[in-house]
């Protein structure tokens, strides 16, 4: 069949005709479906000298941060104040979901599981995301402040993992390539969040009060990003992180809180599988369809 008007020969250059024809045994039922391994064709052997277990745990940590954060952003879609913010937040969620897919595929390839098995069939205590990722934003100020804190940290980490001409990146070339791909995306997320934090902080008394309250609320969970992680292949320099934040907060007229990081539970935090009460609800929504239909394809 063809979507073209009768008499209008589109040749085989019309992608919608190609989509309408079934080349995939019915796996692709709509645009963007029929998911395949996002690392298809990439050399995924683990370099000598690298502990595969540590690499898996680190990829899960970064993949779970992105997966859970993306889910929280998706929950905002259709609730945002303006259409422009809808497309922005949906695009940011999509970028993070893409990063999550590649990171979970990297981890899964080593332990013999697919990205879907890792995303949909792990228990809460097996998820390694920081608790900041699972926070439910109470308002738009929390959305943009949380995104500023998270994307500033993640961008610095990904730059370090990607390496540069003068400095080697992560010892795992697949992780380095995933990080290099994510750097431009995260730079956009950070700029978007920073510009809104300035507009709110330097706006009306009400927007200023809400931005400062959001910062005070989110400062303790953001502190968890800097807990030492023995599996990490790179770390973020706290001073560099603070320098970026001070620039934004100074422009916005907001005060950097002095509150201590969110306490660990018997020495265990998000990376150890200890989460807030919100996490169970997120996983229930994220996983229920896949668990009800374990043979389904997407």
């Amino acid at each position, binding site marked *: 069949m063809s979507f073209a008007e009768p008499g209008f020969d589109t040749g085989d250059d019309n*992608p919608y005709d190609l989509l309408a024809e079934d080349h995939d045994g019915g796996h692709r039922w709509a645009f963007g479906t029929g998911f395949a391994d996002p690392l298809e064709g990439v050399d995924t052997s683990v370099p000598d000298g690298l502990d595969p277990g540590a690499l898996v745990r680190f990829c899960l940590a970064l993949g779970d941060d992105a997966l859970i954060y993306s889910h929280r952003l998706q929950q905002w879609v259709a609730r945002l104040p303006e259409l422009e913010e809808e497309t922005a937040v949906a695009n940011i969620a999509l970028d993070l979901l893409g990063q999550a897919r590649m990171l979970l595929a990297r981890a899964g390839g080593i332990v013999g599981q697919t990205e879907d098995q890792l995303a949909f069939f792990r228990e809460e205590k097996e998820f390694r995301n920081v608790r900041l990722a699972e926070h439910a934003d109470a308002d738009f100020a929390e959305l943009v402040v949380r995104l500023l804190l998270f994307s500033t940290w993640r961008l610095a980490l990904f730059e370090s993992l990607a390496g540069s001409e003068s400095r080697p990146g992560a010892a795992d070339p697949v992780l380095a390539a995933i990080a290099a791909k994510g750097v431009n995306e995260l730079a956009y997320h950070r700029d978007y969040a920073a510009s809104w934090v300035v507009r709110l902080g330097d706006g009306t008394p009400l927007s200023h009060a809400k931005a400062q309250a959001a910062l005070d609320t989110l400062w303790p969970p953001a502190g968890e990003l800097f807990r030492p992680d023995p599996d990490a292949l790179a770390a973020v320099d706290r001073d560099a992180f603070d320098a970026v934040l001070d620039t934004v907060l100074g422009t916005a007229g907001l005060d950097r809180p002095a509150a201590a990081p969110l306490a660990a539970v018997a020495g265990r935090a998000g990376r150890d599988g200890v989460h807030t009460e919100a996490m169970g609800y997120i996983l229930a929504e994220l996983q229920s369809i896949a668990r009800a239909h374990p043979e389904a394809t997407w």
Partner: protein
Amino acid sequence: MVAPMARRAPHDDATRRAPAYDVAAATPDPEIPTLTIEDLGILRSVDYSPGRGIVVTITPTYSGCPAMREIAADVQARLNRAGFERVTVATQLAPPWSTDWITREGHRKLAAAGIAPPAPAPRRAGPVPLTLGRRPDSPGCPRCGSPDTALTAQFSATACKSLHRCTACGEPFEAVKPL
């Protein structure tokens, strides 16, 4: 289309790499169909391997680009139709895609479709700078050519585009973000 093409005898793949490249290169991008994947710079190579047949290597524009699967399926279908029976589509992540890889022809087609082509991608040594208060210049209007345009949103209908408005002719338009 859609008159099914008579299936030809399989080519001798090793000697047919160049025609295979032409077939793969003409695959339209699903989200900006006036451009081919070659115009967009996401087709990395077309090779032949005895084990895998024709190997088409593509690279994603953005990590979450939902069009990658479509592109892989379209490339496969087009090559199959052209008589190449064994086709493998592989992903390559490094080096990451940049809008600098959009060809000159790609720029021309974007402008003709009312989408402002990207300026050269920013080059940097060291950490990515914060662009607070230093908004990049808005591109010229692809409809009337006026340089007086304003950014209305940093994101648009697809991850690779931003939204602008021309202050001369009043039309909103999309631009490919330099990256």
